């Protein structure tokens, strides 16, 4: 690389002002665009106070959201811990929308603001725009519109049906939120106005369909024999519980169905984020590191600022070892950053080992390879594809097997030649949501009989559900379905455990 021209630093003090933020943003943007060709949404940088940051926290960063007590609880919790100094606020929150909204906190120094701009406005932003999951499943230009629609709709419902009534439905939906995701279908973008109009059409149509589905009239006439239940309904197990409820729950009011839909949409919107934690943070961290180093090379930030940056950067990517009291799982920033850096290294200076493990990318153009990795993978496949022996060695990863049939834990693999493959495989599975979360699907809705709904939990490696929590979730499901609900745990094709709401003892019909 040619020696860059040294320029005057943009600022020598730690104070920030709006001019400085703008100049930093211009410089960082220039480098990101011209040198690295990062493709981003336009940025909307909002400066907020720490209290507003707490507000943003408790509404998952969303600028508008419907009202619900759980957000209040979150706010109270954040406020509390912040006041007592148990936690610092994150430096930034960034929203996957177009324009991409990033929050800067007024308490930060100029260096930190520059870090956040590089991290959020160019790192996360380009990830949102480039990664295939976000491209397929979220629509950045429509999300704010949809949030506005959701907020108005729910406020309207509260006026009509009472806050508590609406809250009950929301509670139940939130309990099933992780199971409100379509993994294969693609939602299409629409605006708030169309959404409102669609909502009304949907309301009438949906109610009609449901009534059709549950129509029992012919069978009630004497002389007509009850039809044999020819087939299960649904014919194939359904993984999207909320979708199934929205379309099929027998007694829900139209507005309740719409609320189910809203929660489902939110779950869908956040689904890519849950699947790309390591990649997203790793990518953003890689870019703030790279971009700030470039700023420093050009002389645009001082050595003092660089030291401050490096200090907070190393805090962000610190991985406490498993036996530390600070350990709470693998730090996605650390893992992601290490992996992206390592991909660059493999491209620029491959070793013999790298050529063996990564024949395709060793020695290739690092920027292209990095972007390809960012665009085409999620955490699970990204680790599967790119976790190198070098990173495993650096982080000293090891896999522990915990089998409740054995008295002892067993070390299955460590960072050595025999273990790399296993560690990589297991770590990848750890980020596979379908393994991490219990596999629960709608198995059968008894539409011709007692209208009960049966879910199946397919146990993997004999892992059971946390029973009391599952019990609570099932009660929420019962509230939505309003007829008996059952949860069967399946192991090797046999039902090993059964959970019913209301409990089986009093099997009196629960008509409402």
């Amino acid at each position, binding site marked *: 690389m040619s020696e860059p021209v040294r320029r005057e630093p943009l600022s020598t003090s730690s104070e920030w002002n709006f001019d400085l933020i*703008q100049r930093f943003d211009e410089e960082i943007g220039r480098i990101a665009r011209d040198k690295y060709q990062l493709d981003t949404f*336009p*940025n*909307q*940088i*909002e*400066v*907020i*106070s720490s*209290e*507003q940051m707490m*507000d943003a926290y408790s*509404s998952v960063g969303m600028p508008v959201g419907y009202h*619900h*007590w*759980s957000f*209040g*609880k979150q*706010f*109270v*919790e954040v*406020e*509390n811990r912040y006041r007592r100094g148990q936690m610092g606020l994150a430096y930034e929150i960034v929203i996957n929308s177009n324009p991409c909204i990033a*929050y800067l906190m007024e308490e930060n120094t100029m260096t930190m603001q520059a870090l956040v701009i590089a991290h959020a406005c160019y790192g996360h932003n380009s990830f949102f725009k480039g990664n295939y999951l976000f491209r397929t499943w979220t629509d950045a230009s429509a999300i704010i519109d949809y949030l506005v629609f959701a907020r108005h709709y729910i406020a309207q419902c509260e006026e009509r049906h009472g806050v508590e009534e609406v*809250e009950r439905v929301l509670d139940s939906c939130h309990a099933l939120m992780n199971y409100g995701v379509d993994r294969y279908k693609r939602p299409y973008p629409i605006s708030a106005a169309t959404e409102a109009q669609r909502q009304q059409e949907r309301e009438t149509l949906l109610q009609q369909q449901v009534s059709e589905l549950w129509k029992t009239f012919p069978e009630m006439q004497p002389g007509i024999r009850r039809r044999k239940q020819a087939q299960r309904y649904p014919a194939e197990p359904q993984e999207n519980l909320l979708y199934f409820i929205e379309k099929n729950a027998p007694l829900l009011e139209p507005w309740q169905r719409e609320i189910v839909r809203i929660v489902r949409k939110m779950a869908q919107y956040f689904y890519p984020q849950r699947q790309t934690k390591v990649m997203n943070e790793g990518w953003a961290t890689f870019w703030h590191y790279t971009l700030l180093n470039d700023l420093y090379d050009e002389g645009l930030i001082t050595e003092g600022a660089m030291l401050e940056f490096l200090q907070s950067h190393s805090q962000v990517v610190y*991985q406490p*070892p*498993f036996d530390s009291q600070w350990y*709470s*799982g*693998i730090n996605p920033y650390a893992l992601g950053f290490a992996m992206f850096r390592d991909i660059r290294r493999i491209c620029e200076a491959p070793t013999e080992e790298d050529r063996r493990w990564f024949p395709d990318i060793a020695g290739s153009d690092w920027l292209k390879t990095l972007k390809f990795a960012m665009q085409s993978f999620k955490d699970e496949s990204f680790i599967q594809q790119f976790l190198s022996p070098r990173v495993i060695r650096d*982080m*000293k*990863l*090891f896999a*522990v097997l*915990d*089998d*409740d049939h054995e*008295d*002892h*834990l067993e*070390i*299955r*693999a*460590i960072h050595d030649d025999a273990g790399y493959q296993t*560690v990589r495989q*297991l*770590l990848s599975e*750890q980020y596979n949501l379908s393994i991490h979360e*219990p596999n629960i699907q709608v198995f059968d809705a008894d539409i011709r009989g007692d209208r009960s709904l049966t879910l199946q939990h397919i146990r*993997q*490696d*004999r*892992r*059971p*559900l946390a029973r009391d*929590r*599952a019990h609570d*979730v099932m009660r929420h499901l019962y509230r939505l379905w309003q007829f008996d609900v059952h949860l069967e745990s399946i192991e090797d094709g046999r039902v090993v455990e059964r959970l019913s709401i209301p409990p089986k003892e009093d099997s009196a019909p629960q008509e409402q």
Partner: protein
Amino acid sequence: MSFIVDRRLNGRHKSTINRQRFLKRYREHIREAVNDAVNQRSIRDMQRGERIVIPRKDLSEPQFHHGPGGRRSVVHPGNREFQQGDTITRPPGGGAGDGGQASNQGEGLDDFAFELDPREFLNFLFEGLALPNLIKRQLQGESSYRAVHGGIVSEGNPSKINIVRSMRQASMRRRALGAASRRQLGELKAEQAALLEQEQSPERQARLAELGELIARREGRVSRIPFLDTVDLRYNHTIRQPVPVSRAVMFCIMDVSGSMNQEMKELAKRFFLLLFLFLQRNYTHTEIVFIRHHTSAKEVDEQEFFYSRETGGTIVSSALKLTSDIIRERYPEDEWNIYTAQASDGDNWNDDSPTCVRILREELLPKMQYFAYVEIMPRRHQALWDSYMQVHLQHPNAFALQQIDGPEDIYPVFRELFRQRMEEHTP
């Protein structure tokens, strides 16, 4: 391309509604905590926030999760001495099992604690309480006015300028003042245009020059009309309208006789303090009269009522008589809602109790909204209780009595005495 927005001026209490919903949802838990807090606090610091602790299990938002058991593999960082195939004993609590959910909450896992601010605390404390039978409403006092819109006026405070009306006024004035000049201007311009059509001639040139000057003068006149003048300004007017308010006076009667030991006085003080806070908070137009008595009764100020030490025998009727006198002198019953709260150990001189009952029946209760009596006496009742019981049976709505055994009773008894009754939602 970036936009930079300063949002710091936006509201910072975006989460207020959510916070309130949260408080509402956990009202029962919070009320319990407030209840406990009241009993543990010293009488001086009622007006403080409170730290509320709610068991986390009651707050859960349940989700499907894996429970312990089965066969699972977890990858951890920071290996030091392990080799493949090593076996280690299972750490207690399955710590190595599920690194994510369980441990990142740290030690705060059991309870969910947060602060109520003082206002919220008092809200919970006095929720659902009211002075009973508050019926008399009077026009009275300076503060019982309400500001209402009183139309538009031409003089007023700059902060109340009505912009639309001012601009309309200005527009009218500009039109009116400029009308003559503009009409003439039109005529002159028409003449000028006509002249320009004609052939060149010296007269025409002279007239044109003259017209040019006239037009310039008229145009100057129109342009000099001010866009906005002080006479245009219009202001929103507010007038003060008297509103009927209900005025209430509360007599606090405390027995400080020798039979009341220190502990009992403390209980009585706590009860009155609660009452005092309640009245101060809920009713701006409430006066409070403090009366303490042993053998003779005396009207005292707040400080003396709560903190002075004085003692003697017990004649309850002296206090009732004094109350009756004060009512007659200062609080005519057709203007005031009158309440009395009395605390005593009930250890009255025997022949005094009938006197008390007589004063109550004949002088006090007819004028009064509500009389609440608390007997501070563990276990058994004293002479006064029986006499008062008769009064209660005759006037169940206007006379109430309760017994306090210890500090833990104060708040429940207080709530019982001043519970908002359903039939009392008077307009």
